[in-house]
């Protein structure tokens, strides 16, 4: 147990010491938030609603980046540096190694959520009922799982360059198509229809519903859980194939 807690602690420390982490998951989203709520006038009639809506967009955007890019690329790095192999000769069970990474990642996500929410309060004085702060935070924390599964898949790649290119592409693609950068209603109908099938849209949409005093729609749960199962199955398949070589 001691080993497991220590492993979690070190995983968290390592993420926070990563400059890419600070840039992609805190600096960029907060900068975007500032630009799109203060400098560019929105088409939204209700300014307070827009400020809260876009705060959710940027928080989900940040957590998604941390899950796909930071997590995925680190997995590849540890693998090619032989560290993953080295861990296997220690008595730390492999489930503990993997779980501690997930817990570390979740702790980091909690930190991201708190910081960006605070930025929203400071920049625009966003004010929501406590229940909505907590619910939207919880939603972002839990609904990040399918994206961690994407990161895990990225982690099965053999080279950091490939992993970083592919994850960047997926990350930015999902963010734009899922309506995290620009609200969905300004998109043409076809793109809105595509978004309905993307995990990023449903990730954001759950939070957008919560700050409107509603609950995430049932199809958001279905799509996100379906992606999670699919991606996990795919990852098991790939790893089995890699081991068999």
């Amino acid at each position: 147990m001691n080993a497991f807690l220590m492993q979690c602690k070190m995983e968290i420390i390592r993420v926070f010491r990563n400059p890419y982490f600070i840039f992609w998951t805190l600096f960029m989203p907060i900068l975007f938030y500032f630009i799109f709520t203060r400098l560019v006038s929105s088409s939204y009639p209700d300014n307070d609603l827009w400020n809260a809506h876009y705060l959710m967009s940027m928080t989900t955007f940040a957590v998604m980046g941390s899950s796909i890019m930071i997590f995925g690329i680190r997995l590849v790095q540890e693998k090619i540096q032989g560290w993953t192999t080295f861990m296997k000769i220690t008595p730390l069970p492999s489930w503990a190694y993997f779980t501690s990474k997930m817990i570390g990642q979740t702790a980091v996500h909690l930190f991201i959520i708190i910081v960006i929410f605070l930025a929203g309060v400071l920049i625009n004085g966003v004010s929501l009922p406590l229940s909505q702060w907590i619910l939207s935070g919880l939603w972002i924390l839990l609904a990040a799982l399918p994206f961690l599964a994407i990161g895990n898949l990225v982690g099965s790649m053999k080279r950091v360059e490939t992993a970083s290119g592919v994850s960047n592409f997926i990350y930015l693609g999902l963010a734009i198509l899922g309506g995290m950068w620009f609200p969905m209603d300004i998109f043409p109908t076809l793109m809105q229809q595509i978004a309905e099938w993307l995990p990023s849209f449903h990730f954001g949409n759950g939070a957008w519903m919560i700050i409107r005093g509603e609950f995430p729609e049932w199809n958001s749960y279905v799509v996100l859980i379906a992606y999670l199962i699919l991606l996990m199955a795919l990852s098991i398949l790939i790893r089995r194939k890699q081991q068999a070589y």
Partner: protein
Amino acid sequence: MEQTIQLNDVTKTFGKTTAVNNVSFTIEKGKTIAILGPNGAGKSTTIGMMLGLLDPTEGEISLFGKSPKDLAFKDKVGAMLQDVHLVDKLKVHEIIKLFRSYYSSPLSMEELIAATGLKQEDLNKWADKLSGGQKRRVGFALALAGDPDILFFDEPTVGLDISARQHFWERVENLKAKGKTIIFSTHYLQEADDYSDHIILFNKGNIIADGKPDDIKRQIANKNVSFVSGDPNIMAKLETLPIVISCYEKEGRIYAVTEDTDELLSFIIKNNLDAKDFFIQQIRLEEVFEYLTMDQKESVS
């Protein structure tokens, strides 16, 4: 608890290549064993299987009666592997602390810091930013973190300068004195000869000799008969004889390694084989090893 490490008919194949071919050996507790062989002989694969990193395609491995995958076994094992870089974003003392937490009865922080031989200021550096030699010292300390009974060192001295090498073997001598079972691989004959109680000589995935360094010298370093021949098939003819261990050609002469030079000579003469200008020599282990390594280089190019 059983007192031996045993490999029984262990084979490992990767696709169509056979890295380790049907090897068996026994290692007694408290001994220092050298797995000696040229590059690509199957040394690392064998160590990988003993550590539970690779599953044997066939055969069984038992380490003091336990499976290599047994967590209780891993609690008492330490290793330095090839191509392992220290994890990034952690300081040296943090990695040591982390590793101590994995084991049920770790060595103290002070002992492990002493094992690295690093200065206080270096302990606060990023582990992945240390020099090659310093990283190896940290790796050595990590191998000791759990106060292991068995230690594996895979090619521990490759790339180290002479003084670092000496320093490493001094530390190994200390571990030997404490009764640890030590298994190291090397392609330096001298190291195997100097620091092990027992050598297992690998070539192309096969064990070609297994015994105490002196016995191996006797066993391998047999006599040879060398001669000049115009018959291109003569090596093939001689290799069919049970008394001939191996044949090779060097600088225009055919060398036949044998345990019985008289018998071999009488065979050549009785069968009227095309051979002249005979020499009988005692070969040294170094020469056999050089021959093996040379053979390896040829097959690579």
